[in-house]
């Protein structure tokens, strides 16, 4: 009986696989849909589906332009576009951070954003060469447990002190942390940055992602952590703001720990629909979406921020050109030298 069952199941496996073969060839392999693809806007999105699919659906609803989105890690998508070169099917690259956009721009794979669109956003938040434009802003914050941290540090460099040993969480492999270290390197110099990173080697508990740090601060595993501001708001939305055990704050006086970064968009193909998409992202309704749904800073004038943090122009942020944040390999060398990866 069991024998029979086993034999049957083997045959079934085969049969099912054959059915699957037919099914997939019907559903997945339709490169011949050339007509459709011409009219379809292809977006490579390094931003998470959970965060941006809604705004893309709204775009289609408003413009009638069909969209295909390819979600993956921002760096992987940048590498993919680099490999595809001139033959890339992508029209738009929507990125979490400026670095990935910068690398495509350097390789000459991005088309210029129309000036009238660049003008909508303060020039600090777009590429100097006009090849990509910022869509939403995020800042680095100190996430802390108010029961454990009574005296707030003035500068991110204070965290290097011995009183912070084992109390602080960082995510050294995360792109946003690396951008922040790049900024520190550019502003404060390699030596000081390396010293700080080495101090982190003793003081910090290492995590893979911002969200994991927040989780650790919430659960009391560490007392404080360096994260992007919107993680805290996202968690607050999930569990209710009143249930948040941790708080976020900023450092004083243009501290590099308060770095402002942006999510931005570049055009791999400057078709009309691609321009229309960039235009849509900088529209009132899309900006309101980012302000309220992803708790980021809107970048166009006239859209108010929703979060309780200081306004972007009042953030005591360091003065830095975001295009300078693409010198990541030197940063990685430093982080590695400090033994953090």
């Amino acid at each position: 009986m069991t024998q029979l069952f086993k034999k049957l199941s083997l045959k079934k496996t085969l049969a099912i696989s054959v059915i699957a073969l037919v099914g997939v060839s019907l559903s997945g392999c339709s490169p011949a849909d050339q007509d459709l693809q011409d009219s379809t806007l292809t977006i490579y999105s390094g931003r998470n589906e959970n965060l941006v699919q809604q705004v893309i659906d709204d775009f289609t609803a408003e413009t009638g332009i069909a969209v295909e989105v390819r979600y993956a890690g921002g760096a992987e998508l940048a590498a993919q576009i680099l490999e595809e070169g001139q033959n890339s099917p992508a029209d738009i690259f929507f990125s979490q951070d400026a670095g990935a956009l910068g690398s495509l721009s350097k390789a000459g794979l991005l088309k210029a954003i129309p000036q009238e669109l660049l003008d909508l956003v303060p020039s600090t938040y777009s590429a100097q060469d006009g090849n990509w434009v910022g869509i939403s802003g995020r800042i680095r914050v100190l996430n802390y447990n108010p029961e454990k941290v009574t005296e707030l540090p003035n500068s991110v460099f204070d965290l290097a002190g011995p009183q912070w040993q084992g109390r602080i969480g960082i995510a050294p492999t995360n792109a946003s942390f690396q951008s922040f270290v790049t900024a520190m390197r550019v502003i404060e110099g390699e030596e000081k940055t390396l010293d700080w990173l080495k101090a982190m080697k003793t003081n910090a508990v290492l995590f893979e992602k911002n969200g994991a740090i927040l989780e650790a601060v919430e659960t009391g595993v560490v007392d404080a952590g360096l994260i992007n501001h919107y993680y805290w708001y996202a968690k607050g939305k999930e569990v209710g703001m009143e249930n948040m055990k941790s708080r976020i704050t900023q450092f004083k006086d243009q501290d590099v720990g308060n770095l402002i970064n942006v999510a931005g968009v570049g055009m791999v193909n400057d078709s009309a629909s691609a321009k229309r998409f960039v235009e849509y992202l900088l529209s009132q309704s899309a900006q309101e979406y980012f302000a309220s749904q992803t708790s980021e800073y809107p970048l166009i004038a006239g859209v108010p921020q929703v979060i309780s943090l200081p306004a972007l122009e009042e953030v005591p942020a360091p003065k830095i050109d975001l295009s300078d944040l693409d010198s990541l390999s030197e940063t990685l060398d430093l982080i590695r030298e400090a033994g953090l990866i």
Partner: protein
Amino acid sequence: MRRPPFLVVALSLGATLFASLPIGYLAIRFIEGLDKALDEVFRLRTLELLGNTGLLVLSVSISAFVIGFSQAWLTTRSNIRFASVFAVLAALPLAIPSYVMALGYISVFPTFSGFFASWLVLTLATSPYVFLAVTASLVRVDTAGEEVARSLGFGRLSVLRKITWPQVAPAATASVLLVALYTLSEFGAIAILRYDTFTRAIFNAYRGSFDRTAAAALAIVLLLITLLVIWLERRYRGANISSSRALGKRVRIDLGNWSWLALPILALVAALGVGLPIVSLIIWSILGGSSINWDQLLEALWGSFSLAGLAGVIIGIFATAIAFWAFRYRTKLGAFIETLSWATHALPAIVVGLALVFFGANITPWIYQTTWLLLIGYLILFLPNALAAISSPVARVPRSLEDLSQSLGTPANRTLFKIVLPIAMPGIIAGMALVSLTVLKELPATLLLRPTEVDTLATRLWTATETLSYSQAAPYAMLLIMLAGLPALALNAQARRAISEVREK
């Protein structure tokens, strides 16, 4: 000299062509930035990575071997209680993607990281490969021979070494090779647990600095390490023993008081490899309140199911062709092709993925971002998994049966399909199942090569974990484990099948 059938040669050469694509890609990138590439290779850091990677590969290979072999021996050859339950538990971690296992661990122990963490998680994730391979060959070993050896004055351990081991060695070393290459190419778990290996450095070269030259240089070093590992395995593998004898009677060895040591150890390994990850998944789904998007779930389920099924069958066919050529004809070329298809197995999926992006987008745009290119990616990545399972059954079919068939007037090539193929079929199907379940878990290449807007359970799981919504991730992870659990259980049943066919004493 007999000549292999055209179909066998064509499929084998096809697979070889595919397998050589990533190597060609790496060569292009390497030569393109030669000075920079050489700088990247000849750095102190390369030595450090070499040390880290070597330490991890060596330690995971050894521990996965010890654990997998012990589990197989205890559940097939001893009188330990709940043997079939422990066998299922030993096979099940195969269904759990190692990144899910790693996430499970850090969600319970947030500071779990570094060498020990990576070693533990990878050992748990890879020991089922050894367990299944050793189980399948252990049940074929005639226990009467072991008893004869005992009666000739050899203790239990010497019998294990001198009689049992030589008979399971080819399958066991092939599975350890899989473990070693798995460890070499692993990224997800290593990144989550933060241990620096070549593969992670290659990913970081892309991620951190979009530096394709540096990545290619590191990948070439990795390729050389892989060749070394393969060479070592070939050297110490030993010959497949063809045994046409009927299976002998089976006697379970009385563990006596040792069972009080063995039982808790088996239970501990099961708790670490299956219990903890699944418990943490359950905690994820309880903690989060997010509702399940059933449309997405079903779509991803179908995507995973169809891709894995298709990849399993296709890759199984290619692997069978190569095994036929390499083991039924024993030509140098066949053996070379078999080795080459192993060589690219340790390349990180991102390298294979980008190589196919490069060639696909620029040379064969008509298959770019279609299922076919993704399947070629899976073929390059997982052909060795199928080969490991299929080689032994194909090699073991007695030559005399082929001779007999030909003497009855069947031409040599027809004999291959009418005699060797059906006899080796259970092994071939096992190979297909192994590939399917590996494809189910694959992520980096799937993200790069999938048709736009086609989702699998793995890509959905990734979407959820990227934003750390574990509660949203939980149903996908559960479904993925259940789906991959089916082939894992089938493989276990297949490996242990002979046990029920043999008289119990």
